[in-house]
């Protein structure tokens, strides 16, 4: 809880000018004494003082003189660390994939956004900071996990926007932004209602767009140099926005999870002449070490791992798994994959690849505990701290300002009882640019929303009846999903116009995973895998039809006032599976 907030109920009864005055001048001068100081990975002062003046670190060490007038906090028995940085997280950002009906029959997202607005999937000029709207609850949750800075990065899309860096001080957004833009984001997502609507289309689109941006610049320069003879260049806002990234003036952050997407991205970067880039996610990086080493680019490792059935190479084994009963061999094989995923960051670091961490898709507490898991899987603790402080600071272009407890840097600090990445550590205080936040006991666990899922609390029972639409490559299809729960285990049925599919799976917090086998009339059996997140009465996720397509879907809990779906009003019959 930020100290100024404590008095807010009282302040509300006072005059506005007084409240404003109080808000304007919170103290940013502290002396943290008798504290163990982790200045940077491998640099520890067992007992010393950190002096914070005007929001910056003035001194840190064993022999620091505290000037008069500075508030002294005796932190005996505690450790102060540099503030943690979540290098890539969409907390407080709008969804890239818009709400509502999709498919070819639907209005493109661009039309929904307004006549002059680009579709959210293709909006490279948009900086995350400009659309950032985290709640105080979001910020409290992040700070409670020791996170002081976030690299705001959109989740999904193709050119969803640009990364911004914010310090989690709260208050107005402008005051939180430390750097914007940081980098151009690129992902191999799908666009609704227009080209490119597939991953393979996105690859072609990204390639063409980068070439276009480079060509635009060349044409503009030629026109500047010789307006009398050179062709007057046109203006395309998308290409103009991509120009800094396409010409090396701004780094590119490419999102990719799977082994094959990582290899595709590395190839695409080389093809389009992009050298200054970072890979984000890279959950299957351990399968791609050769290519990542050769590319020698930093990796922001996502700590939210894909479902084991989605990991490359696992599909074939699962295809022949017994459909009922226990499967000890399968469980063991799963744990091999699970271990490899958890050791991903360690594997990359051991190969000499610079890593940072991303809590995308996780709660803040899960982010910190995820790092604990990475250490348990073999990453040296110092390397983990580096990946949560100095390296992300560098990737955000803020290495001079953030990432260590050194004089001159912004006073972003975490005071912890215990080792910061131990599972029983207690975050006690957080300082962000010298502003003090005291973390109440037990605030850490479960606090804050899951990022990238609308910032809501997440969760809710999966059991019940859901109605929704999925957006296949060939149009929108309505469905009904009925689920029964027994503990965390789920059973149920998915009904579409293709017929019913029996499902079984489980719920883990807000996450639901289900699988089953569809047998559409006249077609081969298709393995279906559903992963989704529940937010109260919304269920959002993807359905993977093995070997054919991954389609996003949205569903609503059926209840009073929620009408049953109309039978396929605008469905366009596709050609998949039909010669």
């Amino acid at each position, binding site marked *: 809880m930020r100290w100024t907030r404590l008095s807010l109920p009282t302040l509300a009864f006072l005059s506005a000018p007084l409240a404003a005055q109080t808000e304007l001048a919170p103290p940013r001068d502290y002396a943290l004494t008798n504290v163990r100081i982790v200045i940077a990975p491998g640099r520890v002062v067992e007992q010393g003082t950190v002096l914070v003046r005007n929001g910056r670190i003035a001194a840190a060490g064993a022999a620091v003189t505290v000037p008069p007038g500075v508030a002294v906090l005796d932190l005996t028995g505690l450790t102060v660390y540099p503030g943690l940085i979540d290098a890539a997280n969409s907390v407080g950002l709008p969804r890239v994939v818009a709400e509502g009906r999709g498919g070819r029959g639907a209005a493109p997202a661009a039309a929904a956004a307004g006549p002059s607005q680009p579709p959210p999937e293709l909006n490279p000029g948009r900086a995350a900071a400009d659309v950032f709207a985290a709640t105080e609850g979001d910020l409290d949750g992040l700070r409670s996990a020791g996170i002081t800075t976030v690299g705001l990065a959109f989740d999904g899309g193709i050119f969803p926007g640009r990364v911004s860096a914010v310090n989690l001080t709260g208050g107005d957004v402008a005051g939180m932004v430390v750097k914007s833009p940081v980098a151009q984001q690129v992902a191999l997502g799908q666009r609704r209602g227009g080209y*490119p609507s597939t991953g393979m289309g996105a690859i*072609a689109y990204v390639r063409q767009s980068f070439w276009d941006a480079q060509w635009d610049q060349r044409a503009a320069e030629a026109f500047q140099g010789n307006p009398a003879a050179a062709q007057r260049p046109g203006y395309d806002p998308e290409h103009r926005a991509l120009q800094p990234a396409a010409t090396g003036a701004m780094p590119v952050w490419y999102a990719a999870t799977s082994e094959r997407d990582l290899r595709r991205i590395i*190839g695409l970067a080389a093809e389009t002449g992009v050298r200054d880039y970072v890979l984000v996610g890279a959950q299957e990086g351990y399968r791609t070490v050769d290519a990542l080493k050769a590319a020698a680019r930093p990796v922001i490792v996502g700590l939210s791992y894909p479902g084991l059935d989605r990991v490359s190479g696992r599909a074939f084994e699962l295809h022949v798994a017994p459909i009922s009963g226990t499967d000890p061999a399968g469980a063991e094989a799963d744990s091999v994959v699970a271990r490899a995923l958890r050791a991903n960051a360690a594997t990359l670091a051991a190969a000499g690849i610079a890593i940072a961490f991303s809590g995308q898709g996780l709660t803040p507490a899960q982010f910190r505990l995820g790092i604990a898991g990475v250490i348990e899987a073999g990453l040296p603790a110092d390397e983990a701290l580096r990946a949560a402080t100095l390296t992300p600071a560098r990737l955000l272009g803020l290495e001079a300002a953030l990432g260590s407890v050194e004089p001159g840097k912004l006073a972003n600090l975490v005071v912890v009882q215990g080792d910061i990445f131990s599972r029983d550590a207690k975050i006690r205080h957080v300082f962000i640019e010298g502003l003090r936040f005291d973390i109440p006991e037990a605030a850490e666990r479960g606090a804050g929303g899951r990022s990238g899922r609308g910032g809501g609390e997440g969760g809710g029972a999966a059991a019940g009846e859901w109605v929704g639409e999925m957006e296949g490559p060939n149009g929108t299809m309505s469905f009904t999903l009925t689920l029964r729960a027994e503990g965390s285990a789920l059973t149920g049925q998915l009904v579409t116009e293709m017929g019913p599919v029996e499902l079984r799976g489980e719920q883990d917090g807000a996450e639901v995973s289900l699988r089953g086998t569809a047998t559409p009339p006249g077609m*081969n059996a298709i393995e279906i895998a559903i992963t989704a997140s529940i937010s109260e009465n919304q269920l959002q996720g993807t359905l993977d039809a093995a070997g054919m397509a991954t389609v996003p879907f949205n569903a609503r809990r059926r209840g009073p006032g929620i009408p049953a779906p109309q039978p396929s009003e605008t*469905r366009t019959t596709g050609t998949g599976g039909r010669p």
Partner: protein
Amino acid sequence: MIRFTRAVSPLVVVAAVAGFAARAAAQDVAIRNATVLTISGGTIENGTVLVRNGKIAAVGASVQVPAGVQVIDGTGMYVMPGIIDAHSHAALEGGINEGSESVTPEVVVQLRDDDETIYRALAGGSTASLSLHGSANTIGGQGAIIKHRWGRPAEELVFEGAPRIVKFALGENVTRASSTAADEDRRYPKSRMGVDQLLRWWFTQAKEYEQSWKAYQEAAKRDRTLVPPRKDLRLQALVDIVHGDILVHAHSYRADEILMLMRVAEDFGFRINTFQHVLEGYKVADELAKHGAMASTFAEMWAYKVEAADAIPHNMAIMSARGVVVSVNSDSGERIRRLYQEAAMGMKYGGMSENDALKMITLNPAKQLGVADRVGSIEVGKDADLAIFNGHPFAPASRVEKTLVDGKVLFDRETAMTLEKLLQSRPRTTTEDRP
């Protein structure tokens, strides 16, 4: 000539960047005492096929097997070239149809290595295939010719040196004849007339694009400061099609649309390499042969929609007899396991010779894929892609015992990961066995 696109698929680029993982040394192997169906050089009883370094080193009845070469006893067995499927959608991810627009030749299919269809294909003696876009678009995009190198990373599936291939489509799928969407939501073209017109519009654009580059290259000789025209991947792909650098495989059914597409191609100076499905090909077999188009069809699949109604099982035999190079394809993860049974129907319907029927799953699809110099027959110097059957492949009870790709046994019924064995003890194919 315009050559800036580097004329390679992204997959190849990825492979070049990533570097191929060291491949296991090819095992030298000899198959002895087998009946060898060479396809190009007759049938050899009690023959031997010697494989060295992944290539066929010798074939004949009296081949000496050098010391140190592993011997497979082929007594009672039949050896044929690895079966080639000219139409599948196996091993793809990232979408099959880029259905947002009707002409997207710049979109290249993306491969995945963990599609079990590859393994099942091997179990049916199939060693290579053309993995194509779907048929939602007039020009869908570029497909991938792959070898079924099960267990290797996706980029190593690519049939190295094989030509680029683009999928066209005609008729009901492209015009969305069965769509229930409201009229205003439907995409151009809505009719076969529209498909004709759209093709002509795009190839006219491509000609103009090529002209703009030629004009630039001419002018750039005098003025080096000139800015080149904008690179357009889509138009460049169309230019490459016109120049024959990308081979056209066209999904088609009706005789009229087949004739239409050949006219369009001839008007713009290129050739349709292969008509796919081509169920009414028997009506225009002479025209196909004259154009130089090949045909890849089904043996006995028809009447699944209106445009597939007027088909006959003699289609393969009639087109063959009229001089068209004919293959029979799977278009399915199921039929890809038993293409030899499909080919056998060429003998049943229309009386094709045994060797001509076998050609429909070996040498002929190899020609259609532009890889006949590498695969499709058992000849010295060709890739050692071989299928070993326990009887004649056309005998109903025969099954594949071993399948070799590049001289390596990738399917072996003795040690196979059959469903039964997998259920007993699940060997892991995921994380550990990848270096």
